[in-house]
């Protein structure tokens, strides 16, 4: 009978390997002749790169060479808007942005190489607050923007997403009370226990094989690896499966494109594993959200209409952000409990913070603003 399996627990398919220690995570894998990458990250939040000299790094014993923007084989742009630079070459727009990588026989030699890189950055005043960034007098988050208000969809506003169900104004008119609140959701780091990591090598079929910690295979393949590496999907063997936690933190590409570039350039297996400090300091965060919620409520407690405005600080690059920004306010709507709904949108506003991945959406905070006061707190004035 089919029902005999209902209510029965199913053994965890990969559980035995995890409790015996035989489960292999990416850092447990080694290849003969494997080399290691260490990265020079931007020390400043915003600035112009006046000069970058990697020659001293290349002369360090054990160093195979360096990778910079010049070594990107395909286009130097990825993400939803296909604009995020792989390496900073002319400007940096967040602290921790990649500038140059050193490939060496071990991590010590690579670190020694990184310490020999000479970079001259003219530091500029950064912007950290998204509402400051919206003001006309605000400096541009990066010089290749015309405005800090992104308008990729060409409708004349920074709005990137709208959702409407029913007549919101009529819903508010019908309500007995109007309740409004603002919810601030702070920056989060996913802090998965396994730091970001990748191994790339050329396999015996001539394909570029990449052990990835990606949580979004297809997106990363078509929105990053294929364009950046200049390869069709048939030439990339993308190997994934076991990761040490993710929570959305692996929804953006952190290391795969870098090891891919190095493996293509030097024809050796290459591993790049971030240290915990590097992981926390330089990878993408879930930037702060601000929701303005207006509810029309009846005296019996029913919410008859809701209007949500959402702003999301998406950091210096859009990355995979447009998706969560757009979806977050729509998740604030419960069609069964609130028939009439409208959003202004999920506006992604850039600042000089690390860009966000398509991270955990702040659904509970958005969906329960008026009944669950533990999530409601005023926006910090600073």
């Amino acid at each position: 009978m089919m029902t005999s399996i209902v209510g029965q627990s199913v053994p965890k398919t990969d559980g035995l390997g995890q409790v015996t220690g035989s489960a292999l995570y990416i850092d447990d894998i080694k290849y003969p002749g494997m080399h290691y990458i260490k990265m020079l990250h931007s020390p400043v939040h915003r600035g112009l790169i006046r000069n970058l000299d990697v020659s001293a790094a290349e002369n360090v014993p054990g160093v195979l060479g360096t990778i910079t923007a010049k070594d990107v084989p395909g286009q130097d742009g990825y993400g939803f808007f296909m604009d995020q630079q792989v390496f900073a070459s002319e400007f940096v727009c967040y602290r921790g942005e990649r500038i140059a990588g050193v490939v060496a026989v071990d991590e010590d030699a690579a670190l020694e190489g990184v310490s020999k890189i000479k970079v001259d950055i003219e530091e500029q005043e950064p912007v950290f607050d998204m509402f400051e960034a919206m003001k006309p007098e605000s400096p541009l988050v990066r010089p290749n923007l015309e405005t800090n208000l992104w308008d990729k969809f060409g409708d004349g506003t920074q709005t990137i997403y709208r959702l409407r169900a029913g007549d919101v104004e009529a819903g508010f008119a019908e309500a007995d009370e109007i309740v409004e609140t603002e919810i601030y959701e702070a920056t989060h780091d996913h802090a998965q226990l396994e730091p970001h990591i990748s191994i790339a090598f050329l396999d015996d079929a001539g394909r570029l094989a990449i052990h990835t910690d990606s949580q979004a295979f297809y997106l990363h393949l078509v929105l990053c690896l294929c364009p950046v590496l200049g390869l069709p999907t048939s030439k990339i063997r993308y190997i994934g499966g076991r990761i040490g936690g993710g929570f959305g933190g692996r929804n953006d590409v952190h290391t795969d494109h870098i090891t891919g570039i190095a493996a293509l350039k030097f024809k050796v297996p290459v591993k790049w594993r971030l240290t915990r400090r590097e992981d926390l300091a330089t990878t993408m965060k879930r930037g702060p959200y601000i929701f303005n919620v207006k509810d029309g409520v009846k005296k019996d407690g029913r919410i008859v209409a809701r209007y949500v405005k959402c702003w999301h600080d998406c950091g210096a690059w859009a990355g995979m952000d447009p998706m969560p920004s757009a979806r977050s306010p729509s998740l604030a709507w419960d069609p069964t409990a609130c028939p009439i709904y409208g959003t202004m949108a999920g506006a992604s506003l850039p600042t000089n913070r690390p860009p966000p991945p398509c991270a955990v959406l702040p659904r509970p905070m958005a969906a329960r603003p008026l009944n669950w006061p533990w999530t409601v707190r005023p926006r910090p004035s600073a």
Partner: protein
Amino acid sequence: MKQILSFVLNGQPVVTLAEATDTLLDVLREGLSVTSPKRGCDTGDCGTCTVLIDGEPIRSCVTIALTVEGKEVTTLEGLSKDGELHPLQKEFHERYASQCGFCTPGMIMTATALLNKNPHPTREEIIDAIAGNLCRCGAYIEIVEAIEAVAGGDGKESA
């Protein structure tokens, strides 16, 4: 300069080479390819590199390798005997106490040390013992239940 280091690893004597600056985690993972102790933070904070040195749970990422000369080191690989799972491994598996599994080696080793010293700990003592082991997936309830089940409790969360 590398120095000779000999110790007992999971019941087997091993002789290897280590720099004075190498950590036990470096020697285990990179030198001896014992990969169950994981590198989560490398600063002694997350606990996933925990191994037993003479029965004591120790963060191998902040232990200088040469200090284990002549000592007995046990990793997760050394727990199962003759193909039989250790009771902790069995309960962790059956009670879904691992999710991504990255903290599991450290959790089980910490729990092993606890139960060796105190075979019937209270729930509070279990929670106290694993306080230094982070599980970012949040499987703490199942982890405590699995340890409790081995310790002779019913493995059910009390109200």
